[in-house]
């Protein structure tokens, strides 16, 4: 009993120490990395605008007005101009942001959930489970990323939901590999052995002793992955395999605008710029998170 009390006290001391150290590092990172802070603010702003789109004084993103087609930016009534059907580009960009952002976050989260589970199981249990899991990820990685996604969409049919399913499936081996590597090294550590000697069941060991170690590498991978998933969804939409008309998403806006690029470059430039800015911001925040959470990388 006394041993446990001492343990708890030590853990609390360690935790509070870690807490203030974390706050300190956070402050230092923010000071040193103004760009990442700016990127974070941009992301929050874009997400807030996208979330608030139904309540903002925007025009109907699907309202066709063929008289006013392909108007350049700063025309009266249309700040960012109109597309080939005379639809308001600002409204379509903001409504499209909802689709693109949600697609990026949801597919990355789904890939993460599947991948972390598989990686945990594959790393913790040696033997046939490990072999099965690793061969499965090997096979998935024997395809170029986007080609496998395209093949899956070919099988289950085009559409935003199916494109997201395909991208999530294709994305999980990344997390499975990452998590398995960490779990393999943890499996042999003394604290896991100690927990097992005390009679803890596998579920408890995984949840209480292994999972906490996975948080920072997975958070970093996830933050960088959301951007990659936004690019992938936009790519499938661009090929006509993702979002179907008239729904706006940044990739499909680019695809349809392509035919009018000579006369009205803004129809293509604006959605591309939107993807670029958001993914760039995500990458900057991801890099800063890595600096913050993974001290070994910071030394480089």
């Amino acid at each position, binding site marked *: 009993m006394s041993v446990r009390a001492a343990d708890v006290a030590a853990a609390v001391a360690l935790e509070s120490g870690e807490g203030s150290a974390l706050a300190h590092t956070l402050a230092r990172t923010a000071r040193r990395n103004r760009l990442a802070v700016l990127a974070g603010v941009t992301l929050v702003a874009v997400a807030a605008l996208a979330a608030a789109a139904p309540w903002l004084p925007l025009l109907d993103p699907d309202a066709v007005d063929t008289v006013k087609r392909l108007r350049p930016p700063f025309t009266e009534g249309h700040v960012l101009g109109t597309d080939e059907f005379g639809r308001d580009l600002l409204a379509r960009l903001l409504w499209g942001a909802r689709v693109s952002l949600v697609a990026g976050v949801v597919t990355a989260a789904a890939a993460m959930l599947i991948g972390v589970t598989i990686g945990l199981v594959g790393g913790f249990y040696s033997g046939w489970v490990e072999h099965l899991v690793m061969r499965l990820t090997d096979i998935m990685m024997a*395809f*170029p990323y986007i*080609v496998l996604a*395209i093949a899956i969409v070919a099988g289950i049919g085009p559409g935003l939901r199916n494109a997201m399913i395909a991208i999530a499936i294709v994305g999980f081996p990344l997390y499975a590999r990452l998590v398995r590597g960490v779990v393999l090294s943890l499996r042999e550590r003394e604290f896991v052995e100690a927990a097992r000697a005390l009679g803890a069941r596998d579920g408890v060991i995984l949840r209480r002793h292994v999972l906490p170690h996975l948080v920072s590498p997975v958070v970093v991978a996830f933050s960088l992955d959301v*951007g990659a998933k936004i690019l992938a969804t936009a*790519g499938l939409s*661009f090929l*006509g395999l993702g979002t179907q008309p008239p729904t706006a998403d940044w990739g499909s806006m680019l695809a349809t605008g392509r035919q009018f690029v000579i006369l009205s470059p803004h129809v293509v430039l604006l959605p591309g710029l939107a993807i670029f800015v958001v993914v760039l911001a995500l990458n900057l925040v991801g890099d800063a998170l890595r600096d913050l959470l993974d001290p070994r990388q910071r030394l480089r």
Partner: protein
Amino acid sequence: MKRYLAQRLLLLVPVLAGVSVIIFMVLHLSPGDPVDIMLGSQATPEDRARLRTQLGLDEPLPVQYVRWLGHVARGDLGRSLWMKRAVLDEVLARFKATLLLTGTALVLSTGAGIALGVASASRPHSWLDRTSAVASLFGASMPSFWLGIVLMVVFALWLGWLPASGMYAPYAGGDLRDLLAHLVLPAVTLAAASVTIVARLTRAAMLEVLGQDYIRTARAKGVMEGAVVLRHGLKNALIPIVTVIGVQAGYLLGGAVLTETVFAWPGVGTLMVQGILARDFPLVQGCVLVVALSFVLINLGVDLLYAWLDPRIRYE
């Protein structure tokens, strides 16, 4: 090395088996009935049943899989529903164009990437190093298809220096000059993101090597700086660089799908997308199979090259 080669080839068997199962399943997961697509809605039930037996669709899936695998092993990928031609011929004809595009992009990204990486590493924190860091961040964040469109607008439509799309000019084209002119924009677009990745990795590998004692010794001996960087430095940094180039080769092969669509380049990528939109499954299957096989072979090649460069790997 022979032992390693045998081991590596043996490991290929389960991967290829898995790849074939996935490609086969993709066709059979599809909601549409191939019989409907081939016969249309006017067909009688008897016609449909006959075609179904003819195609072997009434047999259990494992039987169908084994038969399909047998056909594939003999180079018979079936007939395209849409073009009414043998899939293999069509895919191979298009694959040449994809290989040309991917190969050119790989040469570009390797050459420019290594040069940029070496230059950044020999002067860390110089303006060149900073610019390449920013460029790599941009490269990772920019949709390649968008970059392609922007390049097309600037260099083909505004400046008129290069052709906008296709592989040859429709009239009076067809020579090597024409082909190269058409190749520039797609190859640069495809290579753009990967140049920055190769450059960053080369820089990291070079910095690690340039910090070693033998580099200091070489400098102390009075070896010229250029020779130190290239002969003593780059040679020893090559192993991680070769690996990343291998990864990039596969990445470029996949990325070619999008780039081909932007520039109407007549490769496997455009064929695959057309096949999907036409619901021509044998064609899509053939395209995916050829691309996946070449990807597996590239990875094998990289592993072997790696083992050849670093003998320690063979004995693990």
